């Protein structure tokens, strides 16, 4: 196994690796200080530190290419022998580069987007904290330290989703006054922040339980230690605790990555500033869950070598991913808010990644699905960050979050229009020229080739989801840029507002990412092979997971030649047709405008019902609120009123009243009238005498 330049002690590279996550925290700490001198400078400081962190991350790339790793530890909780450390293996190195560079671009964008906000200091503090926490997750060498980052991103998301804490009307999401099952479908920023934090916490406690179970048997939280000695796994599986522990750990990923059934927080998270949404969806937070699965997947898969079958664990991952991908894509098709459409799409795309990682564990060629999932993570990070930033720019330009308030904008904001097409094509998976196409195709291929019993239904779900993805992306672009201008835009123009492009600090970052989506897409297959190669070696040397030497797909199946050599034909045809159908439908309704979608939906009770069902989020959100918010509060009020204030309060009242009553009786005897005393005295004497006589 490859050993890094230094196991212990700090070499220059190790120091660099520490710096990747420490630098953003340093930025967070000094930003309040900087703000004392100049509020505007805070943005500059944050961007500078993000850049420094990104450059540090880049120094790890040669390491990843050479399949080396840095594992560096320092003492931490010495009384139980726990160490803190960083583990920069190829997986962490690639991931930390994605995180660092994407967040750097988002930071640059934010300097424009958040210009003039009076709480800018707080914004930058949490942004830096967010990125630092994410890098901590990526680079941690053990569960406990990872959990610091894990809760750190939760905390930062809470603070940033609820950033506009004054809860003004314009910062809400949802449609005011709209009700689902009697509950408002309209959320304030602070409410959404709490929702995000608590829902992810539900995942986190599962993760904690999983961590503890493993710690109880292994006595270590370290990822490397867990591979080196696998006795813990044998002991756990003999007690039937291994798969529950693994699934519990995955529970953490379900929460963070907004997978079914903890997916609902992601939509309300749109109350944050758009740059925050971009960060959450592209670089941090939701990607943390995928990363965790990527961290753990090989660890559990490698247990097959000692005869422990983890199929159930991977089946759970694959199915959760597939269900989420489908569920959220259906809702993405009908929503009128642009950020929410993007949010649905994120959840759905993360579902793809989970699907790929899950299927990886179910197939002979672990590395295929693994690569596909990670490749999709990278391409999604690029196009989704770009789309979000572009959407933020639209929000600035139009002043509304509803796509129905946009329309016909393509002539006014050409740059955003072009970039949004480019990134949008990435999300749709436009054939041959976008990263999204190649990564989605790799996922299809991995599922198709896995040979698992569930492969076919999962493949079908993935395919339907791809059609819907293409459709809603086309719909989004069509609604924003094509057709006639909406009333809202016309009114703005009437009032003398000239619709124009946002500032360069805003469009350049999403421009870069949009161009990259296409640029890397053109050489997508080469790029994918490179990742595949890195992971093949990494998995073999670190985990002992051997794979057949070969390209992404098995050569024996390859019937395609030329630049498509090695691509699975079934997967290719499927993704091509998915794109064609989705795009065609989208074109008819929203770009060509040959048919009015509203009329179409209302024409038929069936379509109307489905539309409503999707728009109401399959009623899942409302049911969660009824079951976990409204009902418990009623219960608590009932207990308070009838138990606490009656039964328990009785413990106070009984002695109090008894004593008060006793005192009153005693008091009553002190009449102060001599006759009554004499009577009682006489009666007493009489009784005594009687007693004596008897």
């Amino acid at each position, binding site marked *: 196994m490859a050993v890094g330049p230094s196991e212990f002690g700090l070499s220059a590279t190790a120091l660099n690796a520490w710096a990747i996550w420490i630098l953003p925290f340093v930025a967070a700490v000094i930003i309040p200080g900087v703000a004392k001198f100049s509020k505007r400078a805070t943005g500059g400081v944050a961007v500078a530190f993000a850049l420094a962190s990104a450059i540090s991350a880049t120094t790890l790339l040669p390491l990843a290419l050479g399949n080396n790793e840095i594992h560096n530890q320092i003492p*931490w*909780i*010495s*009384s*139980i022998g726990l160490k803190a450390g960083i583990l920069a293996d190829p997986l962490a190195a690639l991931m930390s580069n994605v995180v660092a560079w994407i967040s750097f671009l988002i930071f640059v964008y934010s300097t424009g987007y958040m210009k003039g906000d009076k709480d800018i200091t707080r914004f930058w503090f949490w942004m830096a904290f967010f990125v630092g926490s994410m890098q901590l997750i990526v680079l941690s060498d053990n569960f*406990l330290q990872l*959990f*610091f980052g894990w*809760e*750190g991103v*939760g*905390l930062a998301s*809470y603070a940033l989703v*609820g950033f506009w*804490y*004054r*809860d003004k009307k314009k910062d809400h999401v949802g449609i005011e006054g709209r009700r689902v099952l009697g509950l408002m479908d309209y959320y*304030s920023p*602070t*409410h959404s*922040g*709490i929702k995000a*934090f*608590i829902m992810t*916490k*539900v995942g986190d*406690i599962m993760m*904690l*339980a999983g961590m*503890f*179970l493993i*710690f*109880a*048997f292994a006595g270590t939280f370290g990822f490397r230690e867990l591979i080196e000695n696998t006795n813990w796994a044998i002991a756990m599986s003999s*007690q039937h*605790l291994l798969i529950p522990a693994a699934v519990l750990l995955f529970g953490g990923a379900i929460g963070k990555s907004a997978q079914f059934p903890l997916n609902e927080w992601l939509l309300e998270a749109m109350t944050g500033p758009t740059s925050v949404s971009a960060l959450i969806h592209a670089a941090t937070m939701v990607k943390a869950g995928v990363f965790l699965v990527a961290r753990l997947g090989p660890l559990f898969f490698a247990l097959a070598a000692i005869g422990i079958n983890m199929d159930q664990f991977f089946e759970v991952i694959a199915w959760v991913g597939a269900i989420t991908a489908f569920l959220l894509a259906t809702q993405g098709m009908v929503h009128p808010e642009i950020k929410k459409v993007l949010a649905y799409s994120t959840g759905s795309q993360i579902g793809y990644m989970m699907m790929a990682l899950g299927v990886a564990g179910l197939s002979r060629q672990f590395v295929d699905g693994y690569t596909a999932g990670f490749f999709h993570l990278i391409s999604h990070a690029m196009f989704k960050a770009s789309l979000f930033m572009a959407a933020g720019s639209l929000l600035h330009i139009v002043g509304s979050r509803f796509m129905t308030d946009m329309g016909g904008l393509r002539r006014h904001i050409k740059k955003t229009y072009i970039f949004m097409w480019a990134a949008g094509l990435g999300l749709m998976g436009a054939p041959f020229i976008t990263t999204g196409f190649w990564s989605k195709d790799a996922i299809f291929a991995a599922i198709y080739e896995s040979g698992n019993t569930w492969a076919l239904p999962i493949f079908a779900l993935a395919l339907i989801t791809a059609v819907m993805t293409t459709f809603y992306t086309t719909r989004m672009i069509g609604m924003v840029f094509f057709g006639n201008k909406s009333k809202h835009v016309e009114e703005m123009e009437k009032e003398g507002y000239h619709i124009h492009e946002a500032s360069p600090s805003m469009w350049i970052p999403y421009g870069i990412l949009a161009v990259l989506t296409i640029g890397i897409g053109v050489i997508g297959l080469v790029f994918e092979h490179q990742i595949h190669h890195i992971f093949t070696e990494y998995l073999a040397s670190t985990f002992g997971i051997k794979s057949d030497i070969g390209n992404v797909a098995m050569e024996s199946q390859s019937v395609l030649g030329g630049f498509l050599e090695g691509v699975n034909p079934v997967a290719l045809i499927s993704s091509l047709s998915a794109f064609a159908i989705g795009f065609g439908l989208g074109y008819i309704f929203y770009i060509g405008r040959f048919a009015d979608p509203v009329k179409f939906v209302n024409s038929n009770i069936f379509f109307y019902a489905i539309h409503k069902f999707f728009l109401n989020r399959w009623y899942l959100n409302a049911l969660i609120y009824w079951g976990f918010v409204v009902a*418990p*509060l009623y*219960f*608590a*009020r009932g*207990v*308070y009123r009838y138990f*606490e204030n009656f039964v*328990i*309060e009785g*413990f*106070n009242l009984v*002695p*109090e009243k008894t004593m008060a009553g006793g005192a009153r009786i005693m008091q009553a005897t002190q009449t102060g009238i001599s006759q009554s005393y004499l009577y009682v005295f006489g009666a007493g004497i009489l009784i005594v005498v009687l007693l004596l006589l008897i």
Partner: protein
Amino acid sequence: MQYILLQAVFLPLLLSPVAYLLGRKSGPNASAWFSFGLLLYCTTIMIMPIFSGTYEEHYRWTQLFGEFGLLLDGLASPFAIIIYVVSTVVALFSKPYMIARITSQFEERANSQKQLISGGTTMIESSSLKNYVNNQIGAYFALFLVMAMGMLGAVLATNLIEFYVFFEVMLIPAFFMIAFWGYEAKRRVALLFFFWTHVGAVILLLGFLAVGLNVGSFNFADIKEHGIPQNILALAAVGITIGLGVKMAAFVVHIWLPHVYGAAPTPLNALSSGAMLGVGAYGFFRLLIMLLPGEYGHFALFLNLWGLATMMYGGIMALIQDDIRKLFAYSSISQMGYIIFGIGSASSLGLSGAEMMFVSHSLGKVLLFMMVGAIVLQVGTRSITKMGGLAGKMPITAVCAVIGALTIMGVPPTSGFMAEWTLFYGALQTAIQQGSTIRMVAFGLGLVATVITMAYVLWMIKRVFFGKLPENLENTKEASWYVTGPMMVLAGFTIVIGIYPDIFFNQIIPFMKGLVGV
């Protein structure tokens, strides 16, 4: 280095008249800073011997009860440090709060007198107000010092009777503080408080007497050596458990606490939540686990479940409170439940977590009570529904309160996480070792309780600090440095412990390992 602990314990008692006189003669500032300085001195001298391991002092006492000892070991030192640190910072925080409280009481009284006899010039009023405040605040700080002394004495005691005496000593100042400067039905609540805690103490005393008279000595060391006769083991254990349970306001015997917290002045809430309740937890370690290890083995599961019930119940009740003090009262109950849960875990890490929980809860809850104090001072209401959007007006308070809230929720990098993970891990470890399904379920439900905790804390923060600012609060200002300064110190402290828990774990974990094995 002699008489260090004796100084630390008794200087506050001996010098409490000075605090009173200073208050009378020179006003609140002198009295507050004197108390602060004195407690700071005592804290410092007490912390120094900790670095060199276990430290004890012994003095002759009456023949009847045994010797008077003061012991600072791995168990006592975190309690001792936190009790005095909390007392020290709360001393400063008390000043603005108590001045405001006493002034408003003076005005109430003046108003009621005015209705009887109209007249009197403002000149006389202002000078008599000054006298009144000086007098009262002197008395307050004198009581404050005695209370601090009582709490420290209890955790350093090496003798059952000594423990009991200190245990009772801390109740007296608390009783007077509520009766003098409380709110609403303060007299009734003061009596209620005294009644309940006294009932608890008396049950405890019964247990003590049973042990002491049978063993023939009240010294912890002797009792441990000789062992307790079989016939009174169960009696003693039950007495101690119930007595301490009442003290910690565990479920079913908790009702005094919400009443007290609703009526007591906020600094007392902070002190009592941050330090006094913890003495009960300390008692469990010292009296039950150390003196009656066999009985503890039988009781552990029961304690575990009792803790679970307490944490759940407290959390659920906290969810629906509108009075911010009552919310934190129930929150304290819930947090005490965590500690009892950990005490019932019967594993070294679980016990360490329980003690760490005390440390972390103290820091977090004192922060939050200071926030309550700041809000009562600046806003003048206790009803959460009347607040909102205060983050913009009181940023430092808001930030510190959020850090306190994170500590209570157990979110890293605050000390709360370090406490919670060890505590819950310990519970799980025992569950696995014993193959006990009940414990496993309790562990799972315990984790669910952390979600409830999170819900009520975040909801409270939202309703107090976020959202729309009510119009009548437009002119709210940030609290004074007397409030924000101590808050920042504690906020920093909780984060430092959260990142580097060895400060306390280095003492706690080896001790607990020695206590119950690995």
